[in-house]
């Protein structure tokens, strides 16, 4: 065994010498890619990091020119934004209610709807799928006046239920459209096997299908929540004093006389936190290739 090993060990340095040329080429390539990636990352991360820095500055430091990189950090902005006279806390609560409830209702309706669309042989299934998508192409501004009039007529302006219903009109089609493809990826034999195992439709969905599309549910949850949480246009027009999400409240920091940049940044950071938290929670479930091994040749994703 050792005999064939010896010459190999001797020739090892030689082989390394021969490899040098391609290695430097490879290294250069890697270096270039790393630089490029860093630049892209910087462009992508800069606004968030800048806002984070700004949120710890005093209003004077914010306006300093040239911008100060080193400054005395302060938590005043956060204290003001949270507990000051114009506290954002009620607005954060407002946002949580609107975004949370519309996400939950959306999922409760979208999951069965998407499952049905994916499985049933409905006439004009493709057309209806496209219609669902087409509703997303409408510019929201075109809808805002009709929505305002309708909500006014039924007395739902500045109510949670009113705003949530409006949010459902665009989150629901989007969620259904997104979920259908996840359901379609599950082989039909899955529920056929479950049916033969006496699960029945509902239990087949619950025990066999839903666990396999939980990645899709997580993705849909994030998108729907994010859209509702960051929505501004409908909230500012259809909301009011009772229902005032954080996006609308933050807008008050910008006025004709001045813009409170530091407070705005602190508010933005606080508004980001719940979404980031949700993203982290959902990430656990976004597991790729979950269907690998389910069926022969499975795991297309």
């Amino acid at each position: 065994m050792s005999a064939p090993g010896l010459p190999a060990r001797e020739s090892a340095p030689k082989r390394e010498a021969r490899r040098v040329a391609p290695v430097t080429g490879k290294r250069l390539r890697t270096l270039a890619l790393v630089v490029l990636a860093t630049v892209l990352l910087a462009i992508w991360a800069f606004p968030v990091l800048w806002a984070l820095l700004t949120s710890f500055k005093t209003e004077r430091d914010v306006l300093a020119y040239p911008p100060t990189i080193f400054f005395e950090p302060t938590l005043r902005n956060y204290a003001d934004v949270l507990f000051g006279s114009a506290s954002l806390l009620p607005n954060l609560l407002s946002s949580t209610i609107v975004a949370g409830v519309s996400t939950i209702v959306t999922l409760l309706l979208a999951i069965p709807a998407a499952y049905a669309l994916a499985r049933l042989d409905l006439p004009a299934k493709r057309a209806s799928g496209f219609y669902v998508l087409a509703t997303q192409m409408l510019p929201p501004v075109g809808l805002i006046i009709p929505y305002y009039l309708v909500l006014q007529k039924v007395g739902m302006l500045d109510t949670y239920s009113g705003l949530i219903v409006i949010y459902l009109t665009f989150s629901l089609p989007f969620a259904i459209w997104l979920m259908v493809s996840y359901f379609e990826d599950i082989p039909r034999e899955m529920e056929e096997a479950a049916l033969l195992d006496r699960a029945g439709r509902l239990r087949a969905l619950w025990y066999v299908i839903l666990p396999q599309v939980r990645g899709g549910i997580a993705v849909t949850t994030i998108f729907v929540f994010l859209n509702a949480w960051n929505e501004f246009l409908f909230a500012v027009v259809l909301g009011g004093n009772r229902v005032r999400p954080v996006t609308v409240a933050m807008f008050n920091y910008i006025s004709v006389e001045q813009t409170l940049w530091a407070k705005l940044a602190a508010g933005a950071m606080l508004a980001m936190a719940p979404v980031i938290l949700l993203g982290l929670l959902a990430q656990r479930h976004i597991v790729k290739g979950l269907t690998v091994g389910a069926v022969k040749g499975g795991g297309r994703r």
Partner: protein
Amino acid sequence: MIEKRTARRNRLPAERGEGALRSEAGDGRPGAGSVSMRGIVKRHGSFTALHGIDLDIAPGEFFALLGPSGSGKTTTLRILAGLESVDAGRVRQDGVDVTDREPGERDVAMVFQSYALYPHMTVHENIAFPLRMIGTAKDETERAVRDAAAKVRIDHLLARRPGELSGGQQQRCALARAIVRKPRLFLLDEPLSNLDAKLRLETRVELRKLQRALGVTTVYVTHDQEEAMTIADRVAVFMEGRIVQVGRPQDIFARPATSVVAAFIGSPPMNLLPGEVRDGMLRVAGMDFPGLRVRAGDGAVSVGVRPAALRIGPDGLPARVYLVENLGDTTIVDLDVAGQVIKLRTDQPPNVREGDQVRVSFAPDALHLFDPDTGLRRD
């Protein structure tokens, strides 16, 4: 009393032991596990998948549905499972009409071609799932799962997920999930088609042994005639949505009902040559066989001869050796007879080479005559 017991069985089939299944057969009801299909028609839009299928399967029988792809055998199996509705006809299980019953109400278990294991569950959870769905007690489930897993020898893999199993192990897991609740009818849809050749032969034997041990009526779909011939008690041959022949494998091999069946069964399958009968005398490929008296009436015929019944000898049809396929213990010689290639199989190494001019003969009783138009057997 009987009614009560039936009700109980329908609710908790897993709670009755293997013995209960047999004792029920003795209750005077038509044997537990018998299946009958009458006039089953299935259409997919304008396409008719099944043109009136009639089938009777005896309790405890290992029954194979054999046919090329698209012949309707899988559709038939899915109708038995309740996964497809029928356009006409009735399905009965143990004399009870189950045509309109949901899949879960039929006491059948199925192994899918793709296995359809639940990927997010462990092997243990997969096998336990059918029991969990009918509310079986925990300790009993545990015992049944271990028992089923041991029967297919995957009891050491219970903690794994299907994605961590090899193809053969996945297949066993699917089998275990099917047998765990001791169904009345066991449906297998090409269960071996995803295994490699060696494993397929091994699993075939094990499947047969398992079925004998359990005594459960089994319907087995395959397009592999060798598989069907070796594993099944009886075989139904499907062609284009019709059953063309039902019988024991040896009977189908010995007397194929049509030329299509003849050309489908056997490896290699039967050779078919155009021929003619005049005054009780057979003429094949332009050559008379005066020694052969055939009972079929005059007219054109399709002449079938099994490859193993052909001999290279001093007399017979003139042929040119087209190709010699050496399989080790046997040799297959492809012969060009009047422009048509026929196959000859022999255990002895034939002393011929490609391009040789030879003569092939056959024993008179090895002949099968078919009507060239209808394909029906003519004798």
